[in-house]
């Protein structure tokens, strides 16, 4: 069997008395797109934040490329090639575009002094070649706060791409996007697959997930309720199962 890019074994997370996740087993293969589905409060975001190192699991083990990783933190996860497009976008809106692209990962010398010219150059290149910002109103020195929802999402995505991500996590990326922007995003996720990378894709919209994912994992009340290969299941059937799980906690 292929080595997993990422594997969680019996991962649980409690916040005080509340058990957000219980004994989660989750694998992400290399060059695989996994869709994560579940109702509000099912634990999707908690799971994501464990993978990105923002939360530490209460118990359980995390493996990257078959190697166990202890005390995963955000910088450590980013070093291991995890880049995340957060639901809340994780932008600093009063700051310039180039500061946002390099947020938390500023290019600097060993003394910590910033290489501003290179960051602005790279930002300009990413803007014109990847983000498709052609408007003259947008420059590396523009403040991100005045961007549209789609442009902000573009910043969050391009940021994930710049740093040679092996695993790209997309947490509700279509929220607040227009139809055209959503189509662009779905294409982008397909592009991740073609580039040989892996991704975890979370979305409310089953159709978006179904269209791009190789496999769908359903989370319910902090547990993995089941998983399906998209080639083995129809989208209507999947939808019916989702509703049933949300109501009864069981698939059948």
């Amino acid at each position, binding site marked *: 069997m292929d080595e997993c890019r990422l594997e969680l074994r019996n991962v649980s997370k409690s916040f005080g008395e509340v058990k957000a996740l219980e004994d989660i087993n989750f694998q992400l293969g290399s060059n695989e797109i996994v869709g994560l589905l579940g109702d509000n409060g099912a634990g999707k975001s908690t799971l994501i934040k464990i993978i*990105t*190192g*923002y939360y530490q699991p209460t118990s359980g083990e995390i493996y990257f490329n078959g190697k166990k990783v202890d005390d995963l*933190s*955000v*910088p450590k996860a*980013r070093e291991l090639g995890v880049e*995340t497009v*957060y639901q*809340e*976008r*994780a*932008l*600093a*809106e*009063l*700051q310039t575009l180039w*500061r946002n692209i390099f*947020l*938390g*990962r*500023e*290019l*600097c010398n060993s003394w*910590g*002094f*910033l290489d*501003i*010219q290179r960051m*602005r*150059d*790279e*930002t*300009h*290149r*990413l803007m014109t*070649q*990847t983000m498709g910002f052609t408007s003259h109103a947008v*420059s*590396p*020195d523009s*403040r991100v*706060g*005045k961007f549209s929802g789609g442009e902000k999402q573009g910043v969050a995505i*391009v940021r994930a*791409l*710049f*740093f*040679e*991500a092996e695993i790209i996590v997309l947490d509700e990326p279509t929220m607040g996007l227009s139809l055209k922007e959503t189509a662009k995003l779905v*294409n*982008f996720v397909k*592009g*991740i697959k*073609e*580039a040989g*990378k892996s991704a975890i894709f979370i979305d409310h919209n089953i159709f978006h997930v179904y269209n791009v994912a190789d496999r769908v994992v359903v989370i319910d009340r902090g547990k993995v309720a089941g998983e399906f290969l998209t080639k083995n299941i129809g989208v209507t059937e999947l939808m019916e199962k989702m509703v049933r799980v949300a109501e009864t906690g069981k698939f059948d």
Partner: protein
Amino acid sequence: MSSETNGTATKVIQHYKVPFSLRRIARLYSAQLGILGVFVTLWIIFIVSAPDTFLSGRIYSAFMTSIPFFAIMAIPLTIVVIAKEMDLSFPSIMAMGMVAFSFVYDGTAMIGSTTVRVFLAIIAALLAGTIIGWLNGFIIVKFGIPSLVVTIGTQFFWRGAVLVLTSGANFPLTYIKQTIFYPILVGKIGGYIPMQMIWLIVVTIVGWVLLNRHRFGAHVYLTGDNSNSAELMGVNTGWVRIRAFMLIGLISAFAGVLYSFFIAYFWPSLGDGYLLNTLASVFLGGTSVFGGTGTILGTFLGAFIIGAIEAATVAIGLTGFWTQLIYGFIIVLSVIMHTYLRKRGE
């Protein structure tokens, strides 16, 4: 789509050059230009209404003598406020640093050389300030208490500690005048430019470089702008804030040393009366209390506006009673201007 975009950090790329445009510069530096406008306008008003005073060199020598004592603390305070925190305890840190100074000076009597003793005492003062700043930051970050509240508490605590440790006594520091540190810290270059002004310029430049050209400064802006985003992207916002408080602790202790050397005397009330001037300099300079925006240049100019108003009111021929009224008027007007400029800049 993504094949050409995957990580090309090392690839040689074309330099991005910005076409020169006055409008762009005006937008980017609106805060600095705004306060510069206020500064120049006030200056012209002062010169026109009291030409004898404001066209002679003596007034500027006087400004450079007295303003640096609080302006120097306004620089690290700007960094603290940009990180969306507040510090009210720095006047007490000034005094507490000098308590550490006098303890170490008295405790090293076995060393013959006054210069060595004073040197050790200065180090002790700076260290005490840094530690107190660290403690402020630690309490704020560890327990998640708003810094405004914590530093109201520590402000009383350290002032109290000063009074307890010195029994409220004041004493002369005449011995410092024989050491090299006296001319280095508060001497006058060519009999005109006071050394404290040079130290203010040094701290201002270091503060500007830290804030604008160093990773620490980048993280300060990000922490103040949106600490949740910064955390999600791996910035240790707690440590950023603790370091900001250590910085203002260090510089406050240094300001305490400067002022005490200048008067060659220790007063347990050292620092009283500097709180509002320093805060006003920061906000006058366009730093937002909501965090994420602010400039060192603005604060620097703000401090000189604050420092000049008092002398100016008297020189213009108004009584000293007018000083505070004019202070208030200019501060409120400037803050309104900054808010307006910020909204337009977004």
